[in-house]
């Protein structure tokens, strides 16, 4: 399959990239890892007249902790996330997620920022970023602005990004003591989108009571869904089997799945209940230090 014709430009700075996007209005698309965009171009689901390849811009591959947060640059790859010691040791939800995105070869090219900016509710990082209370740095002609993950996903393939903006960085708050997270995804085979998946991040106090819970749902609606009802319910409750079961039922009620070849609406809703239960249970065990962040 061969894409429609387009012009290709590879600027060497972000400012030049933004200028190019502004010049071309909505006709240009940003190319980074290309693992979502290039298949869409080949299937001619997208036919931009210009591709602005940010892959030649230096200094955007970082994954580093500073100022009480993890910063992920626009060109950091999923494979880099898997290989990052900081991510493995301190951000288990992120590590869990990176390992189940697409397949290992795709992850060598695919970028975290691209996964988020694409706005596909079937992508895995959006739910993760919502659960982690992450925010995104958007660079445009008038400088940068920061948008919280929970406000970023507007509709199907629609985000808060303007046509002349680039998502240049993901910022994730450093985990408080006694925090843990986990991602559970059911997929038919490696490389498939999730039938459904759940991201959970919890912080406990010294008595084991839940101080904060973040729960994001993948591929059960037009956008990734934040299960606010379940999050609120868990506030100031012990994370035991009973409260986890109740929160899981609430999360399932927040899902808006539609039937497709991966399953019926009811099946997917119940899957969210089961996966939420598993994700919260493992997140709590990790928060208590009962299991390593890499083990299950």
């Amino acid at each position: 399959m061969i894409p429609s014709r387009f012009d290709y430009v590879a600027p060497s700075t972000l400012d030049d990239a933004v200028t190019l996007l502004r010049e071309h209005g909505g006709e240009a698309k940003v190319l980074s890892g290309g693992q979502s965009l290039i298949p869409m171009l080949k299937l001619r689901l997208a036919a931009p007249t210009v591709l602005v390849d940010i892959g030649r811009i230096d200094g955007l591959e970082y994954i580093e902790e500073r100022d009480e947060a993890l910063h992920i640059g626009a060109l950091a790859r999923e494979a880099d996330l898997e290989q990052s010691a900081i991510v493995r040791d301190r951000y288990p939800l992120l590590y869990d997620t990176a390992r189940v995105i697409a397949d290992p070869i795709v992850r060598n090219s695919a970028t975290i920022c691209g996964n988020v900016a694409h706005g596909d509710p079937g992508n895995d990082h959006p739910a993760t970023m919502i659960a982690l209370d992450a925010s995104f740095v958007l660079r445009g002609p008038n400088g940068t602005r920061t948008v919280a993950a929970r406000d970023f996903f507007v509709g199907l393939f629609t985000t808060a990004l303007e046509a002349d903006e680039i998502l240049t960085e993901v910022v994730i708050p450093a985990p408080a003591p006694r925090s843990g997270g986990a991602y559970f995804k059911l997929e038919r085979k490696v490389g498939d989108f999730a039938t459904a998946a759940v991201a959970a991040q919890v912080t406990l106090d010294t008595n084991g009571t839940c101080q904060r819970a973040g729960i994001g749902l993948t591929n059960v609606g037009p956008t990734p869904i934040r299960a606010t009802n379940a999050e609120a319910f868990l506030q100031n409750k012990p994370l035991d089997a009973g409260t986890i079961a109740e929160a899981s039922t609430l999360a399932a009620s927040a899902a808006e799945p539609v039937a497709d070849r991966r399953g019926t609406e009811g099946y997917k809703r119940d899957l969210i209940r089961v996966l939420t239960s598993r994700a919260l249970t493992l997140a709590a065990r990790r928060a208590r230090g009962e299991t390593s962040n890499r083990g299950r």
Partner: protein
Amino acid sequence: MSTHDITVTVNGQTHSAEVESRLLLVHFIRENLRLTGTHIGCDTSHCGACTVIVDGRPVKSCTMFAVQADGRAVRTVEGLEVAGALHPVQAGFKEEHGLQCGFCTPGMMMTATALLESNASPSEGEIRSAISGNLCRCTGYTNIVKAIQHAAATIRATKTETPARGVAAPGKAATTA
């Protein structure tokens, strides 16, 4: 439409060409360079038949534009054999019958090669995980895993003896190492 002058190193040899923006790397490799060992399978980034190594990492060449490879080093299946000697991965596939129809084999071997360059002693689980983006519809994967284990044993044995590359494969006993 725009065209671009690119220079790509493929299997150690430098190639310069003028390419259209939309030319995919796999088409550049197969049609411009006539290196047809790299296969086009699903053409949708699922099957991995088109896997090549770009700057040390395996990528699906159906999901990368040739212009993105400008200035980079690409390795294809044709680059595995050195001076008439099979690469240990090729020898492993031969010895362990790691293929039937052979369609997935070039991509499978490039993924295996990159794996063994970063991890000379992968567990069976690590091998299966590494090749999970390469589909084979014939073998059921068992012999592919054995082939990669065979290659790993050869590479480890070679490293302890001499730094030479592309040695003949050892006997089957080595696969249990």
